[in-house]
């Protein structure tokens, strides 16, 4: 499933605006994304200094943290759109919620792969049953379940309704992931932002902070680009099936 969405994403990037015409906005978004991504790569690998204890592996940090942030953002968008859908019953909210959740799952998967890679070199183990890691894994499962609801059989509004309900319920895990290390005084996972009980690890310098901010910006832009693109694609699919139905109806007469 995960590879599936990833592939879809890849093809999204490749198949350029064949069908999509119209506003300038997506192009600007694409341009901005490209620029910031390049900038962040520069910042990460050349501008910022190498961390003292961990060395080059620490560079994962930028991808790790910024994709985590993007995942949170994506799920937040799903959450908000789910509420809006239940209130307004407009299909567009549902589409946004769905696409955003899919992208969020991809970002969570990135966190769940970069994390262990990092962990192997710094904690010398791939995985530990530690609050943040566990809750992140749970988060991934929750949104996989969300996607499974979308795959149910039935008319779209039923699926949209049920998925929206689950999108609201499931979001509760996001703050839990965020606060996990702050509540449970994790031995492993470092805290950088805010003041947790054990202010260790991290050791972030100005250049690193800057690089981090730029890479977060880059990934956020990438996220909005993907979201916009995915929603377009989904809308197209809906339209095609509407035309199909219309054709069939005409045939029926």
């Amino acid at each position, binding site marked *: 499933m995960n590879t599936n969405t990833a592939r879809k994403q890849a093809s999204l990037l490749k198949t350029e605006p064949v069908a999509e015409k119209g506003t300038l906005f997506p192009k600007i978004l694409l341009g901005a994304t490209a620029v910031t991504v390049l900038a962040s790569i520069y910042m990460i690998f050349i501008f910022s200094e190498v961390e003292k204890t961990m060395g080059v592996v620490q560079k994962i940090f930028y991808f790790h943290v910024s994709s985590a942030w993007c995942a949170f953002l994506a799920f937040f968008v799903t959450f908000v759109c789910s509420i809006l859908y239940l209130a307004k019953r407009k299909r567009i909210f549902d589409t946004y919620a769905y696409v955003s959740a899919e992208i969020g799952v991809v970002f969570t998967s990135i966190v769940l792969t970069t994390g262990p890679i990092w962990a192997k070199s710094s904690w010398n183990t791939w995985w530990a049953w530690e609050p943040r890691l566990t*809750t992140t894994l749970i988060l991934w*499962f929750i949104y996989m379940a969300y996607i499974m609801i979308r795959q149910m059989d039935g008319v779209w509004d039923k699926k949209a309704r049920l998925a929206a309900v689950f999108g609201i319920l499931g979001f509760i895990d996001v703050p839990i992931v965020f606060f996990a290390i702050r509540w449970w005084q994790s031995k492993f996972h470092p805290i950088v932002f805010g003041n947790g009980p054990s202010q260790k690890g991290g050791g972030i310098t100005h250049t690193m902070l800057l690089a981090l901010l730029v890479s977060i910006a880059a990934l956020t832009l990438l996220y909005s680009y993907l979201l916009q693109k995915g929603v377009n694609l989904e809308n197209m699919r809906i339209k095609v099936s509407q035309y199909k139905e219309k054709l069939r109806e005409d045939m029926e007469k």
Partner: protein
Amino acid sequence: MLRAALLLAKKDLLSELKTKQVLATMIIFAGLVILVFSFAFDPANNTTRAVIPGVIWVIIVFAGILGLNRSFISEQRNDTMHGLLIAPMEASSIFLGKFLANFSMIMIVELVSLPFLFLLFDFHILGYFPYFLLVLVIGSFGFISIGTFLAALSANSKSSEMLLPLLLFPVTSPILIGAVQATRIILTNIEKLSSAMAWIQLIAAYDVIFFVLCFILIDYVLEV
């Protein structure tokens, strides 16, 4: 609203009393789990004690799912669910009624199977019994309330039996983690009672948040 919920719960429990199917499955499954674990571990061996909290919650979770699955699927025959939906009762009454029925069932299962477990593993918990009971009750409460809600949700699907665990496990995992930890502390390490209480508070908070949420959202789930 409460009246309707009680009516519904009564109906479910009565029909369960008639057929005894679900309860029997749950209890026997619980017995089986205990049996399997008593093979895996020598009950006399002291180190294996550490497993017991886990076994308790494995029983509750899996037996619970068997019951939850049935709870809404049984309303599909003759579309009796529609009968409830067109009746002048709120969706939340239906949720509450089903919740009460499921909760009493799981309580019966616990009541029957846990003494058996303790007997087998020769466990004495008299002193901390109220705490243990508290953990059991609020843990099951959270698990079953979320479970009832998600069972209603997944009943819409063709393969609801498979979908329910998929939805339920991740959402309830904080409760389960908390409950296992709290149980472990209470049963084996009572000195750290304060940290058990922290877990219990966490579960309680989670319970309350989700119960309220489910109560609000069930309206949207039970539209046809």
